[in-house]
């Protein structure tokens, strides 16, 4: 590449447009490296949190091995102060905190269910524009599209009012409170928003063996093992109780079939736990099985499904997990059916 011509060429002017100085490649490398290193120290608390909330595995271990000491050095040199101050000014002082406490309500004492109780569903509570049903939608990223469909669907019903926006937290779940602590968040939301209906979807990111927030000294086996299932069941039950004991009726959307067969099997394990826990709370919680909504003619995953008129409709996103809008609309329709079983949301129309 180097020629006589390039070696002997005239020196270029050392400035560019606007009078800025051109610098050597060595300077560029030094500035980039030093700027990045100091930047890493200034952002160490945030980087450590980002490393902590990564999926379990060697990448997380490596990231923690770097960011742990980095955070210590940053703290010792007080270089974490500017970030904390900036976060406080922005009104987000807790951004870098890692909360792994799995605080779930104590399980209710088991009550023998008589045949008469089982046969008598609770009376359908009435809601109207004067007394609206407060609806809360929450979960991992999978809940966002059905949540939007649900919001559109209830837009025409003046007896329902959503409380806040869709509380969809990307990459979150019940396994990893360090990523996002749903156990704390659900209790706070129940207290502040006082919903009477909650539609949730969790588990899309929980098909791994790695859990944080385990009780002191407790260890669990790999995904699907007896100990894993017991701990996950405790968490599902905790979320259900945190919602239903505050008076809200819960519709829990089950995980859909996935393009990856192994992932579908793992989702089945999660769905079975949720279904069982919902069945223990009749009249307070319902499980919505979505598996067959999105299976193709061969029973396997299908991204496109023909509707009643034979038109192919794209139901699933390219990642083979998330939903497209028609899928959201279908789920929303079924969720509303579940809500209608528990609440009377339409009779006000006849009386008004």
């Amino acid at each position, binding site marked *: *590449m*180097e020629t006589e011509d*390039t070696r002997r060429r005239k020196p*270029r002017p050392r400035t*560019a*447009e*606007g*009078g*800025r*100085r*051109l*610098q*050597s*490649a060595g*300077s*560029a*490398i*030094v*500035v*980039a*490296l*030093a*700027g*990045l290193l*100091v*930047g*890493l120290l*200034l*952002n160490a608390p*945030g980087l450590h949190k*980002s490393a902590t909330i990564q999926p379990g595995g060697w990448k997380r271990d490596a*990231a923690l091995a770097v960011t742990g000491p980095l955070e210590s050095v940053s703290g010792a040199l007080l270089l974490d102060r*500017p*970030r904390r101050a*900036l*976060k406080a000014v*922005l009104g987000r002082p807790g*951004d870098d905190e890692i909360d792994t406490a799995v605080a779930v309500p104590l399980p209710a004492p088991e009550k023998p269910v008589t045949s008469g109780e089982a046969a008598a569903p609770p009376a359908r509570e009435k809601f109207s524009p004067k007394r609206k049903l407060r609806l809360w939608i929450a979960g991992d990223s999978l809940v966002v*599209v059905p949540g*939007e469909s649900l919001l*559109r669907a209830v*837009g*025409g019903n003046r007896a329902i009012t*959503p409380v806040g*926006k*869709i509380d969809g937290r*990307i*990459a979150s779940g019940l396994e990893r409170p360090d990523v996002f602590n749903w156990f704390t968040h659900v209790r706070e939301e129940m207290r502040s928003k006082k919903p009477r209906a909650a539609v949730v979807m969790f588990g899309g990111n929980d098909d791994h063996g790695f859990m944080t927030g385990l009780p002191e000294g407790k260890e669990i086996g790999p995904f699907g093992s007896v100990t894993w299932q017991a701990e996950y069941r405790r968490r599902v039950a905790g979320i259900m109780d945190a919602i239903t004991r505050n008076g809200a009726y819960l519709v829990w959307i089950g995980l859909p079939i996935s*393009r990856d067969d192994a992932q579908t099997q793992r989702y089945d394990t999660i769905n079975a736990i949720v279904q069982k826990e919902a069945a223990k709370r009749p009249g307070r919680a319902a499980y919505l099985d979505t598996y067959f909504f999105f299976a193709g003619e061969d029973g396997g995953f*299908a*991204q*496109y499904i023909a509707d009643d*008129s*034979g*038109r*192919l409709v*794209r139901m*699933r996103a*390219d990642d083979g997990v998330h939903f497209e*809008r028609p899928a959201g609309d279908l789920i929303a329709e079924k969720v509303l059916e579940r809500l209608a079983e528990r609440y009377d949301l339409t009779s006000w129309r006849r009386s008004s």
Partner: protein
Amino acid sequence: MLFPTATFAIFFMIVLPLSWLLMPRGERWRPFIIAASFVFYSAWDWRFVFLLAASIVWNQVFALAIHRRSDLRGRKSLLAAAVVGNLAVLGYFKYYDFFVTSTNNLFASAGIDVPLEARSIVLPVGISFFTFMGLSYVVDVYRRDFEPVGFGTFAAYLSFFPHLVAGPIVRPRELIPQIGSQRDPRYVDTSRAFFLIATGLFMKVVIANQLAANIVDQVFGAPNQHSSLEVLVGIYAYSVQIYADFLGYTNIAIGLALLLGFTFPQNFDAPYSATSIADFWRRWHMTLSRWLRDYLYIPLGGNRGGRLLTYRNLMLTMLIGGLWHGAGWTFIAWGAIHGTALVAERWWRERPGFVERPWTRSRRAWHRFVTFQVVCFAWIFFRSDSFADAWDLIVRLFTAWGEPSPLVSGGVLAAIAVGIGSQYLPRRLPLVIMARFSRLPIPAQAAVLSLALLAVHAMGPEGVAPFIYFQF
């Protein structure tokens, strides 16, 4: 491997010094940068590196064959084969399912069952960009505008990681001569590089991500849950989000290339200060506009065949430009709106007796305002999943005034103001900032850079959202 991540920072800090160390020996530098680019690309899906490699081989083989042939017919045939091959791959990965569902649904409405099945094809990231760059190489060779280069140089050109997944679309004559000659390590435009990287990160992480998370996704997701004011601000917010997102990516790409010693063309020039749609397309995604002009509009006949043919060519170019962005009718509608506006502007200027009035301040402001509204209206279709969703949004824009608007917060308005206001800053301002930065001692430059990283990382929301243009 997204630019604003620690993984990419580590990758780049390994590549940067090694690239300069190997630069004096082109025969070592080229394999190194190709390998680095393939590592970068494989971070999304390692299987698609074979697609990238195939694209390199395909275009190089045809470019050499075209160059060697002297007869026009043979050259044309080879060019046609090269173009068909490129478009077939792009068509399969990007448009096959769209074609199948559109065909199926068209016949289904007539009660005819079409035995075509959608295949759930995963779109390789950046395929539209490197396909267009490969096409420009073979077309330029065919036109004798450019002589084919060695395999290593072409492979480095097509796979060069700063532009690989979302542009800018760099033409052969803009980058290949740089790859073919040694970059001078004494003169690196570091101040411009760091300025572009810092502003790019800010626009992406702080402005674009904040707007997406705090208003755009909610408004476009469920318009009937939002007031007209929220819908209106949501549309403006999306116009700023997509600008900040794509400008951010482009600025970072140009800055990284500069640090490696390479100059990319600009991709944006204050597009929301445009005074007409034609002016907008001279300022928005400029490398795509130029590509469409030179490889589509002009070959279609450009403005050489009379008024009606010019209008047709404009419309076709914009429709295909819309389809390039995504396999969906809403993207075609977006292109149609721009095409119609371009045709209307041209018709207005070419009508008998038209005299261009001098630009006054108020006339310029009015034209900018109207142009921005047309661009924002078109963005509704670009962002919406379907016509029904776009229609819902438009209806809501007029039917829910006076309702509470909690999403219209000070932060959202400030982000919109920054996104639009930045396009009206004096053009000298960045030059002055860069000149002052370049005169700081090296430790001070590093300190400024680290403070910029602090501000971006602390002000941005948690997590890194992918760039919008990756999906194209």
